[in-house]
């Protein structure tokens, strides 16, 4: 399990800037505190981005950041599958720097969910799967007004995702 599914990369300064969460005051019960979530499709388009308590923002535009993110994930994915001695079932799941943890979930249809959290988060694959199956599929795929593969505009989706994340027991009450 450890060696096959979890990849830990050494932190690099560049990565740290993406999401710096140096304080852990909001963390309860040693669980994860989601900082941001994004949904990408196979061609690298970012369908949706949202953040809850991200502390640092880059000087670059969101578009630039998405491109960097997609490039990085693309490289890690191919790196991980190349060095693995086995056929990967789930592929790469997450990595940690000294400041944050990035979680990755990809469906066989190529939809990629990326969530950044603080370092205390365990495996949140379940959370990402729930977002996919109960929120994305339910409110985007089944919504005739939502074209697939283009940025998400549905208010209903935004509300449901936000409610779901805020409803997780790990989400601190303090946050507005």
């Amino acid at each position, binding site marked *: 399990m450890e060696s096959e599914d979890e990849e830990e990369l050494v932190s690099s300064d560049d990565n740290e800037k993406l999401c710096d969460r140096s304080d852990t005051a909001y963390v309860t019960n040693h669980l994860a505190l989601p900082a941001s979530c994004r949904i990408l499709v196979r061609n690298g388009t970012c369908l949706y981005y949202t953040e809850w308590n991200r502390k640092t923002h880059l000087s670059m535009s969101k578009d630039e950041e998405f491109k960097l993110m997609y490039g990085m994930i693309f490289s890690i994915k191919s790196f991980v599958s190349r060095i693995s001695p086995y056929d990967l079932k789930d592929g790469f799941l997450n990595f940690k720097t000294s400041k944050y943890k990035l979680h990755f979930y990809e469906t066989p249809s190529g939809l990629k969910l990326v969530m950044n959290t603080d370092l205390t988060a365990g495996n949140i694959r379940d959370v990402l799967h729930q977002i996919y199956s109960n929120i994305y599929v*339910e*409110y985007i795929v*089944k*919504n*005739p*007004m939502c074209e697939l593969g283009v940025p998400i505009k*549905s*208010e*209903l989706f935004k*509300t449901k995702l936000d409610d779901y994340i805020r409803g997780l027991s790990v989400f601190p009450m303090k946050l507005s």
Partner: protein
Amino acid sequence: MAQLSDAVLFEYLHIEIVGYIHRCADENEKDHCIAKLESLGFRVGQSLVERFTRESTRFKDELDTMKFICKDFWNSVYRKQIDNLRTNHQGVYVLQDNKFRFLTQISNGKQYMDVAPKFLAFPCGMIRGALANLGVNSVVTAEVSAMPACKFQIQIQRT
């Protein structure tokens, strides 16, 4: 007979039918599209009700027929019952569905409000078709003020 087991397929098919009917019409033919969808729904409602009532006895009165639409018919098509049924006792019935299946995924309020009529024409036709087959002639319209709630108004046509 083989049994199809999933409601989601019907929902996707309905979305495609709405899309198809609107694809082959231009902007000023909107009313025409609604009418076309309504008549497709009519045909489906008509044949569907036959599947139900094969062995059953006739309904005792109009209200009894309406209750059938609100309960059994609605449950089979949308997997839930109508939340509220009202009548003025003069041939007008209002069926309220607080979470209408075809709207629950579209919006929780006013977003995309302009498209709601497209997705209600077929269901209106289905009600009219079902009633017609049970010997009740009617005109059925739908009204939405905030999705996913929807009111279907049935006006009985007596001749």
